[in-house]
Structures are given as C-alpha cells and as structure tokens.
C-alpha cells in the first residue's frame, strides 16, 4: 500500500483556480487604479476637506503611506503634493531624473505659461496618462513635510488602505476642517466601467463555485478508501493522516510558492495598494482550511456511520 494518497489532478486544478482568483482580483484592482488615474489620481475612498485655521503652516509627521493634494479654491489645476516615500506616483515621463528637492510634473495640455519663472525651472517631466484629468494639471511635488497654507486650503487625502478619516485626524489633530462629500469623475462613472466590475465579480463567483466543486469531488473520491481503511481496523486519526496529510502539505506548498510569485508580481507590476494580494492569500488560506475541515468532517461522519452499521 502507498504511504500517502495524492490526487495530482486535484492539486493542479487547485493551483489553476488559485491563480485564476488572484488574476481576477488583480484585474479588479487594476481597473480601480486606472479609474483613479483617470480621475486625476483621486481614489474612490479619498477624503476631501477644507482647512480653516489662522496658522500659516502645518506639519505632517506620519509613518503611514499617504498622498496629500493641496490646492487653491480658485486654481484647482496647480496642486501641491505631499507624499510618504513608499506611495506610488502616477505614470510619468521624466525628462530628467527626479530630484531630491521639490520638482514639478505637468500634464500634456497644462498651460505651462501660467507657471512662474522659478516654477518652470522645476518642471522635470509630464504625466503619461492619456485620457486622465491629470493632463490638465500640474503637480508641485514637495519634499518637505510642512504645508504652507498660502498654497491653498483645500485638500484631498489618498490612502492605500485603512480608514482615510482616521489618518486625516491623525495628520491634523488640532486643526479645524470642513469635510466635503466628493464625487467621482473619469472612467469610474461610465456605466460600462461599473458593469465591468460586475462582470469581474461574477467571474470571481464562478471561480469560487468551481473551487467548491473541486473540493467536493476530491473528498467524494476519497470516501471509499477511508471506508476500506476503517474496515481494515484503522483508527480515524491514522486514516485521516494517511489519506489527506500529503495533500494538505502539497496545498500549503502551492499556497506559499504562489504567494511568493504574487509578491513578485505586486512588486514589479504594482498598483495602488496591495489589497488584491492580501485578498488572494486570504482566499487560498480559507480554501485550504475549508478543505481541511471538510475532510475532517467527512472522515468522522463516515466512521460514525461505519460504527453504526456494524
């Protein structure tokens, strides 16, 4: 008798379904990121607010990743940007390498003539974002973490994950502000784009059901061997170990290797945040745990039935 039973078909199918789920989740986040770019790099969860204070400047002292936009109410096209180093910037064609001091990126149709002479000398590149509101804007990327309120009192805060309101409160703890309810623009409000997300969600559901069916049939195919081993006098935990343990180990190996591959993808083809990556890992983990519990229940219930029949 073999020491362990492993269904290569099941493992292969699981690997394919894990990959498919991760692929779909990545695509969903990519669509959101494309929408964010086209909306002038404003995330759907971004917070918009106006600061009311007598102070002339404010300091930011945060470890969390964020991208803060500051602009004047009467000139929303020139934005001052404060970022945490780890935050991804929109696609940019650099004419010169990015400076360690402040620099400016302009949109392809932004009228550079409206910039002062000093500001013009800081322009080092253009946004590579066709079909985005960024094309009409200029970003003054500030390397200091001190906000000069003479540059505007309106702000938009983008965060990669977590609650942006909490981060805003942490950022400006003793400052009075007025929250504004923001509206999406760009591709995010196109009906076809909204439906594309629905389409992707149904596809994810398809993968989840396919995964459930795979798990169900894998367990069904092992029922007979569990019964035979029990009739041969095996104890339930030995039977469980013999029949399933190797498959669990293989599934964990698949999960870990897939996690590493996805990590590499997340690094080289990064989008805003890593939400898709964590959900993919969670999905694989839940599937394996679900499979483990289902196998355990099946073994126990079969043995229970076996005891009754004898």
């Amino acid at each position: 008798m073999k020491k362990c039973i492993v269904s290569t078909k099941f493992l292969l199918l699981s690997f394919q379904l894990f990959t498919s789920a991760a692929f779909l989740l990545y695509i969903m986040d990519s669509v959101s990121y494309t929408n964010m770019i086209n909306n002038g790099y404003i995330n759907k969860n971004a917070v918009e607010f106006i600061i009311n204070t007598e102070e002339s400047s404010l300091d930011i002292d945060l470890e969390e990743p964020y991208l803060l936009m500051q602009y004047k109410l009467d000139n929303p096209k020139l934005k001052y940007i404060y970022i945490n180093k780890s935050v991804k910037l929109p696609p940019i064609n650099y004419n010169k390498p990015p400076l360690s001091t402040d620099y400016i990126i302009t949109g392809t149709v932004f009228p550079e003539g409206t910039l002062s002479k000093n500001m013009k000398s800081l322009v080092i590149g253009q946004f590579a974002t066709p079909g985005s509101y960024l094309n009409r804007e200029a970003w003054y990327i500030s390397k200091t973490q001190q906000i000069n309120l003479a540059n505007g009192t309106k702000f938009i805060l983008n965060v990669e994950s977590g609650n942006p309101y909490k981060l805003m409160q942490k950022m400006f703890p003793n400052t009075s502000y007025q929250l504004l309810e923001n509206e999406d623009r760009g591709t995010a409000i196109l009906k076809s784009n909204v439906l594309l997300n629905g389409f992707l969600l149904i596809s994810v559901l398809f993968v989840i059901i396919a995964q459930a069916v795979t798990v169900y049939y894998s367990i069904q195919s092992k029922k007979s061997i569990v019964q035979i081993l029990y009739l041969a006098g095996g104890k339930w935990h030995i039977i469980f170990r013999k029949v399933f343990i190797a498959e669990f180990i293989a599934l964990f190996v698949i999960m870990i290797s897939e996690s590493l591959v996805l990590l590499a993808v997340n690094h080289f083809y990064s989008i805003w945040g890593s939400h898709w990556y964590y959900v993919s890992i969670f999905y694989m983990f839940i599937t394996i745990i679900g499979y483990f519990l289902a196998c355990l229940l099946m073994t126990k219930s079969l043995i229970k039935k076996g005891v009754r029949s004898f």
Partner: protein
Amino acid sequence: MNTTRLLLKNKKSLMLIIGLLSFLFSVVLFVLLMNLNISKIEIRSASKLHNYNIYKLTDNLIGEREIEFFNDVKNYDILNDFNNDVFKNNKVVFYNAVLQPIGLKQYPSDKKFSAYYERGSTNDIYEYEGDLYQNTKSIQVTKSVFDYNVVELIEGQPFDDSAYVYVTGRKEIPVILGSDYRPYYKLYDQLEIHYYLEKFVGRVVGFAKENSFIFTNNEPQQVLNRYILLPSMSLSEQPSELLQKTEVNEVFFRALLLSKMGGILMTNLNALEVRKEIGEIEKVTNFTDYQIIGANSLAVDLLYKMIETNQTLIVTISGVVFIFILCAFYLFVKSFIKRQFDTYLVFIMCGVTNHKIKKTIQLEFSILNGISIGLALLCTVLFMQDTTILSILIIAGFIVWLVFNIVVYLLVNNLLATTNIIEKLKGD
C-alpha cells in the same frame, strides 16, 4: 423511459452544480454582450462630439456696454433674433449647458446641493420677498445636450419641445433632478424656485440616473447628481412685446437672452466658414457684439480619450476573462461526463445500448443547459432593466445552447469510442 429515469436518478447534486455553472457562464456572457453594447453607445456619443469642430460663441456686452445696449428695448429683439437665427442654422449645432445657480425654497438639509458647497461655503441662504431661498446648483440645457450625451432617467420623461419655449404668463418650468435629490423629492413635486429674479414653480418631470454626466465647454464630464436641470428657454414672442405685456422683470429677459447666447457651436465647418456663416446672421439681425473663440476642443478630446481608453480596457479584460471562463467551463463539463462514465458502464453491462446512453446524456445536458440559459437571460434582463439588445441576447443564448449540445455529443461519442468497455468492467 424507465431506463432514462434510472439513468437520471441519483445525480441531483451533479445536475445542480452543472446547472449553476452553466447559469453563471451564461450570465457572464450576457453581461459581457450588454456591456459591449453600452460601451459602444458611450463611444458613439463621444465620437459625435469629437468629430465636430467646436467654437465658443460669447457676447461682448460687459459692464457699461451691457447697460448701454439694453437701454434700448429694440436691442432685446436684435439679440433675440440673433439667438434664434443661430439656433435655427442647419450648418451648426447650437449646444448650451449653462451652470447658473437658482434659488430653491424647499431646499434639502444636505449642504452638497448648495451652489458653492465645493468651495467651502456654508451659508448660501438668502431672503427674497419674505421667503428663504438657498442658492442651489443648476444647469440650463438646450435640447442638443440630450442629443449629444447619454443622459438616462431613473424615472420620468425628458423635457418636451414646449419646455424650451417661454410663453407669456408662464409660471411653471419642468425640471429634471440629479439622482442625489431622490430622497427629498418625488416625481411631479412642485419646487418653488427663484430664477433670474422671478419666482417660478419647478415641476419635477424626471430624475437622472446616478453618475449621469454631460459635456460642457469647460468640463468633459459635468456630473448631474447634485444638479437641477432646467430647459434653456427661447422666447415665443419678441422680448419688447413681452416686456409690454407682462410684469416680468426685464432682468429676467436680459439674463435669459445672454445665457442663451453663450453656448458652443458644433459644426463641420472650419473657422473661416463658421465666421462667415455667423457673419451672415449678423448682417440680417444687426447684432455685432459677439465673438467666436477658436476651437477649444481639449475638454472634448479628454472625454473621447477617456471613453476610448475605457473601451479598450473593457474589450481586453472581458475578452481574456471570457476565454478563461469558457475553457474552465469546458473542462468542468468534460470532467463531469468522465466522472459519470463508470455509472453508465454499469448500465451497459445491464443491457442498455450505447445509443440509449448517448441520447440520455444529451437530453439531460440539453434540458439542464436550456433552463440555465433561460434563467440567466431572465435574471440579466430583469436586473439590468435593459431590453435594447434582447434579440442579440436570445440569439447568443441559443448559440451557446447549440454549441454546448455539440460539445457534449462529441465528448460522449469520443469517450464511448475510446473506452474499452470490457477492460473497464473487468477493472483493468
């Protein structure tokens, strides 16, 4: 019949799973087709704008010049004639979407409807003849705005032709509200509005769908959720006569004529030709205080590029995902049939013919898939509330059903032909 019943027995879970996967597969296909159609409509609408040369028509009546011009009542008629002739000219499309706050008496508590909310203004309330009004976001639109944008209504009707004409004594104006107004008002509600210093009743004739947007000269997408849409009205009679007949404030007519004028000319003519065309109207009407500003098509270019990028995204992603789902579905059906094959072999042993088994499997899959496709079609159409491409969806559903039957037929034939039944029954 008895054999068929026996063959179909004890496979409830299998049938349920295949039915469910077939249902989801069909939903994916129908949603994909609907989405491609929506995307086609969006790009067609943007193309209409993109293919035109765009010019802005503005007046020179600023400050003293405006006061001087409107001192003579005849000039009201001159401006009105000019507006009407431009509007009627068949070589240019006159497109006007004017963002102009109006006073609203029964204003909602939510401040986002206030005209200057985005600028941080917290007090847009003012008093007029003892009543309190809030300066509220509003856009006046010409009929062409609905022709060149995809503005769908959740309920109600678009403005009819009479809505765009001001007649003597008119006190009611139809209004279309943005989707964010839905919790506050119902269809046919009457709003008291203060419009160019005149009081009107705004009758709610419709609600725009969430995130509906229109193109304006400055904004590629002016989202309508928080806006009140009013028809941009022309006058049924010459303003000089209306001023004599009615007690309406002259500021109302002046504002109406000026706002009506500052629109966009969309045309296939080049800059010289369009100037010549409007010059002819100038000669006829004697109105000279206008300017045609060269094509500023940046906003429309951005809108077109955005929609084009979105369509590419949709076609690419949908295509890749659909091919993947198709392959996965095929593999699952194949493995289900293979899985059930051992059961069929037992029936063969009991004397059931190959032909009977083939027929039963085909019948089973055909009925199951037919029901799933039908249900998927029903659910998709009901959920989307869109029947514009119903015939295409029915044809697509039928093709899927047909292809599915052919695939099952080929799979079963192939399996029966390649399986050595005697060896299989022996357990080798």
